[in-house]
């Protein structure tokens, strides 16, 4: 079990270093940072001095190691566009994205699992079939279209909810939250629905098909032969077995919710990391882009680790085998 966790950690570290390398390579391939930073009238001496100051005269491996060392301390350099440390710029934007993503993930998981179980148990029911058909819409419609549709209905026509921004936020230490004000909460509803909808339908369809599969297995049949009530079979015996494969996919999906809120943030002009990244791309703000890449990789690694730990909690077969035969 310890070896199992250790292996997950090592894998995570390898992934992070690989992504950091790709992020670092961007500096070399996306234009000349010095040309980006100095004005048109700068002299050669100015340029050389800046090159030296930024360490760009060093050999490539040294530059990469320095990048890694700084990145590990959260230092991704200075944003070309804003002239401020990237870490500070990102820290400002982080709360908006985290609140949006976490709420979306909770919404998608809770509603998705509940609907999936319902659709599996009432397999031939009218409501279950209607839900399944609707879920096809969720899987096939692009996120931005859902967002624009929601804005049209609830913001433009009904005027119930705001169409953009975070509303009023409250400062709590270094964290700004929209969860404590009415306008902040209202502003969250549409983006959360938009971002969570695709994951919801995916999780729901996955739960349904896995559960139907589990319900066909021998131990469910044996549980029925023992006279165990249906509710107990469905929620105790079948659901937990269903969750093992679901956790894998759902975990990765939820990682992508946090990482790729880009589209939703753009549609709702949400002042989060995704919007920051889109702006950074427009202005070739390489340090911000690199930091965002590493951040996304970090989120995925953490989610993956959490998924592996969830396996341990769910499946005694993994816990028992100390050599972790996986």
């Amino acid at each position, binding site marked *: 079990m310890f070896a199992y966790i250790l292996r997950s950690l090592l894998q995570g570290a390898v992934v992070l270093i690989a992504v950091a390398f790709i992020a670092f390579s961007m500096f070399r391939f996306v234009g000349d940072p010095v040309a980006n930073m100095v004005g048109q009238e700068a002299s050669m001496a100015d340029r050389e001095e800046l090159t030296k100051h930024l360490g760009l005269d060093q050999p490539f491996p040294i530059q990469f190691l320095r990048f890694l060392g700084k990145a590990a301390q959260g230092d991704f350099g200075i944003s070309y566009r804003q002239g401020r440390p990237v870490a500070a710029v990102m820290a400002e934007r982080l709360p908006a994205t985290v609140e949006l993503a976490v709420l979306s993930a909770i919404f998608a998981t809770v509603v998705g699992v509940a609907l999936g179980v319902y659709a599996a148990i009432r397999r031939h029911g009218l409501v279950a079939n209607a839900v399944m058909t609707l879920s096809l819409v969720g899987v096939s419609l692009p996120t931005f279209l859902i967002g624009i549709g929601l804005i049209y209905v609830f913001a433009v026509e009904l005027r119930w909810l705001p169409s953009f921004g975070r509303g009023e936020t409250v400062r709590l230490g270094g964290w700004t939250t929209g969860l404590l004000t009415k306008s902040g909460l209202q502003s969250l509803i549409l983006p959360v629905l938009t971002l969570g909808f695709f994951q919801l339908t995916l999780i729901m369809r996955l739960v349904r098909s896995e559960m139907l599969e589990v319900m066909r*297995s*021998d*131990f469910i*049949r*044996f*549980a*029925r*032969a*023992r*006279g*165990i*009530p*249906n509710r*107990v079979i469905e929620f*105790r*015996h079948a659901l*937990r*077995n269903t969750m093992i494969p679901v956790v894998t996919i759902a975990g990765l999906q939820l990682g992508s919710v946090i990482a790729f809120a880009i589209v939703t943030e753009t549609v709702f002009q949400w002042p989060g990391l995704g919007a920051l990244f889109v702006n950074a791309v427009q202005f070739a703000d390489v340090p911000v882009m690199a930091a965002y890449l590493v951040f996304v990789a970090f989120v995925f690694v953490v989610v993956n680790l959490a998924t592996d730990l969830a396996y341990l909690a*769910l*499946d*005694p*077969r993994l816990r*028992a085998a100390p050599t972790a035969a996986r």
Partner: protein
Amino acid sequence: MTQPVLSVRDLRVEFVTRRGVLKAIDGVSFDIAPGEVLGVVGESGAGKSVTGSAVIGLIDPPGRIAGGEVWLSEQRIDNLSPEEMRRIRGKRIGMIFQDPLTSLNPLYRVGEQLVETIQTHTDLSAAAARRRAIELLTEVGIPAPERRIDGYPHEFSGGMRQRVVIALALCAEPELIIADEPTTALDVSVQAQIISLLQRLGREHGTAIMLVTHDMGVIAETADRVAVMYAGRIAEIGPVQDVVQNPLHPYARGLMGAIPTLAQDASRLVQIPGSMPRLSAIPPGCPFNPRCPHAWDRCRIDRPEPIQHGAHKVACHLYDLNDPTAEAHKVLTHPPAEEGVPA
């Protein structure tokens, strides 16, 4: 005669498919007395397992019980509501499946599964149910049950898991146990242990056992009576020694003749020519007629009903005393196509 524990009368089970209604069980009748072991044998697809599932009420759609009656002691159980039937399953009828490796939920300790079953059918407290679970594990021969009760299924070997499965079937001291191929998935050495365990439990508790298997060796050792099934019907039923040593039905004779023994000096294994018809293509008359070396015109038109013949009941026109021509057909007119019938 004592009241039978299980009495099945003219049971019919159908599967509704796109290509029509398939009759998996077509008019099966038998009784099992208290403490008796009835072996049910036949080829794959003969309807052995479906009969067991029908008795315990676990025929899944598109299958359904299309007719007949199932009586457990003095209660008719084939027409109960699903909830009433659930209360009988596990309490009055226990069931054991073929594969002990997949019969247990891998995510729960065996103790949790035992306690769950015990508490479903009794009013015992959690602590009392746990004590009962340990007793059951002791009874089925699990060493160190106080410790093993907290083990997960994957920590048990195949034979030990089948013992746990048997303990689960015994939780509420059922009157009847249906064992569906209980030893097929096990090593030969473990098979004998499981069979003798079942026998002992049946004797000690007076539990009737319906033992479904295609292993004639298991039947010969264990069963008191045996029913030979073919294409959803009982071809022959009778005391096990009689049926094994003196089978009447041509199919049963072929089946017994096909058991290889070390004493035989046969270069080829004996087989019955042809194969069992698919459910969608059961011939009219006797379903065995295309493979039967004795078949005559009547067999292709007239369906044979079980006839009492000594201690056996046999569904074959050869034993119809009212048919004056039957005796003549007992002599083989056309020997089976395949050779290799040992002397």
